[in-house]
């Protein structure tokens, strides 16, 4: 299990005015008091806008960066004291086409990186064949990477990230710039790694559908602080965004109208009626999903539902509201604690 407690990272930037001007030291808090947990087999999302602190968090957890304060451990190994041990059991896969040698073939790339993990030579070839099979690159295994498509390079990145059979895998925007079909294929790979190979996965992405589809739990990070946590659906509902119900019925009696007003009053819902030539449209917007209650009123009054549309809160909207602000969220950038909250279902 990966446990991170109160991780902070402060970068010190030296700035000089002109060539011979005095140096000034500027501190930037990239990550501020981040705590998170990842269990084996879980896919955890770390979402946030650019510069929120996602990559810095991943680099700290992979022992590439030393936290300024805080601690983390993976399977009981102290990540601050034993960075080399941590590096044996984690790996990072980043999006894009870097991090691999373009003039080498896929097999040669994997041979090189596997050697750095001191994989025994007798196991190396079998392991590389298995990885190439997993990412569907076996046929192109002996072709220089420079001839690969973007998707193939990204699949090779995944294989590279698995050469040491890591217990925990950090995916930093792994589907960046990929077309929908390849991205879908990669998501399947990621799910397979968590479900079948029991790997703990931390995923950062800007594609919200990806997070909704894959993540068991999400941490929302902004300006280095964790500002919300929860399952994708919990987060979507937690920002006090409304569920909108649009229903069409043949006619509207005053009794039905009254009943609808009553539930709208109880749930502080916004309600609109629109009479059309052939039907009547009713629109209800509330924080709770009132579909059941509305359907009950209509059916008990013998009104058939001609059309029903439910627009539920989306994670994307919730994230925009969390990251860019909204009336319903108290924002206090200087103090993480006062602005963070935990989503509850």
């Amino acid at each position, binding site marked *: 299990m990966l446990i991170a407690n109160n991780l902070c990272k402060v970068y010190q930037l030296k700035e000089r005015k002109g060539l011979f001007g005095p140096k000034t030291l500027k501190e930037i808090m990239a990550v501020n008091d981040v705590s998170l947990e990842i269990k084996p087999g879980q896919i955890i999302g770390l979402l946030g806008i650019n510069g929120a602190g996602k990559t810095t968090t991943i680099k700290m957890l992979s022992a*590439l960066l030393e936290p300024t304060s805080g601690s983390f451990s993976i399977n009981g190994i102290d990540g601050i004291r034993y960075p080399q041990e941590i590096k044996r059991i984690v790996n990072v896969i980043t999006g894009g086409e870097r991090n691999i040698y373009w003039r080498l073939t896929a097999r040669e790339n994997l041979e090189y990186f596997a050697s750095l993990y001191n994989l025994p030579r007798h196991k190396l070839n079998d392991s590389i064949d298995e990885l190439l099979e997993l990412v569907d690159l076996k046929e192109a295994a002996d072709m220089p990477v420079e001839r690969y498509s973007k998707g193939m390079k990204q699949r090779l990145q995944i294989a590279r990230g698995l050469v040491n059979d890591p217990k925990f895998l950090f995916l930093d925007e792994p589907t960046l710039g990929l077309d929908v079909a390849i991205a879908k294929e990669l998501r399947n790979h990621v799910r397979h790694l968590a479900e079948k190979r029991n790997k703990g996965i931390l995923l950062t992405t800007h594609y919200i559908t990806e997070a909704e589809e894959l993540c068991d739990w999400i941490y929302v990070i902004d300006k280095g602080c964790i500002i919300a946590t929860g399952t994708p659906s919990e987060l979507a509902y937690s920002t006090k965004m409304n569920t909108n119900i649009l229903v069409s019925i043949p006619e509207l009696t005053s009794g039905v109208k009254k009943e609808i007003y009553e539930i709208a009053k109880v749930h502080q819902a916004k309600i609109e009626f629109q009479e059309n030539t052939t039907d009547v449209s009713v629109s209800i917007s509330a924080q709770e999903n009132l579909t059941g209650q509305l359907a009950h009123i209509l059916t008990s009054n013998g009104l058939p539902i001609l059309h029903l549309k439910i627009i539920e809160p989306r994670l994307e909207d919730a994230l925009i509201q969390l990251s860019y602000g909204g009336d319903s969220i108290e924002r206090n950038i200087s103090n993480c604690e006062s602005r963070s909250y935990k989503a509850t279902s």
Partner: protein
Amino acid sequence: MKEIFQIVRAEVIKQHRNSFHSYGVYFTLLIWPIVVFFNAYYSYKPFNLSQGPWNTFASQEDIIMFLITGFLGYISFKSLLQSAFYMGHERINGTLETIFLTPANRIAIIYGRAFGALIENIWMFSVFCVFVTVWIRRIPVESLIYIPISFIVLIVSAAVWGGLMNVIFLFSRDASFLMAVFDEPMILFSGVRMPTFVFPIWAKIISALFPLTYALMIVRPLLIEGSLSASLQGIYKLLISLLLIVSLTLWLLKKAEKNARKNGNFVFY
């Protein structure tokens, strides 16, 4: 030890696959040093070589041997400076950070990289040098053993130098100025083209900073005079020099990784 050997081997193979993919590369590796060598030789040719420092040499063949050993040493050291310079590509490609993401022994990576570049860069010119050496000197059978000994001295000292260069380039993305700092001064002060004993004191002090100076102090007596005893003085100096360089390399390596873990600068380019 097995772990270190595996990493060095992987690094050498990667260097070969990543940098040497056409016969044209090998061709230039042969042509360029030969042109530089002949350039130096024919620069001296018009002058009266029985005067000045050159009168210590018995013949024209000795001068050729002096220059060719000097250039073999210089090419070895320079190629490692160039190889270290290409560390910048690893930064840009993101592979430098990916290497440091692994728990691989850093010293093995640094020296594997140096060793790989060295072998690739000098083997063709080395063959040429051996050919010239045997051709002009008609080396007696009992002295043939000095040829591999000389190569070992040059390869070990150049690899140690290369390790230091790699670490310096690892430390800073702005280390390319070292090309200017080390390249021309090395060819001048290490005695590649002229013997160091003709230098004034201040120049001798600078020449003492380059391990190539001591490597040539060993190799030249072996190949020109066939004298092992004359090269002994150089052995001690070279060993001390290499020991200091290895210590500095290890210290800088530790500092470079610590610095990178603090600032995340392996991705800056």
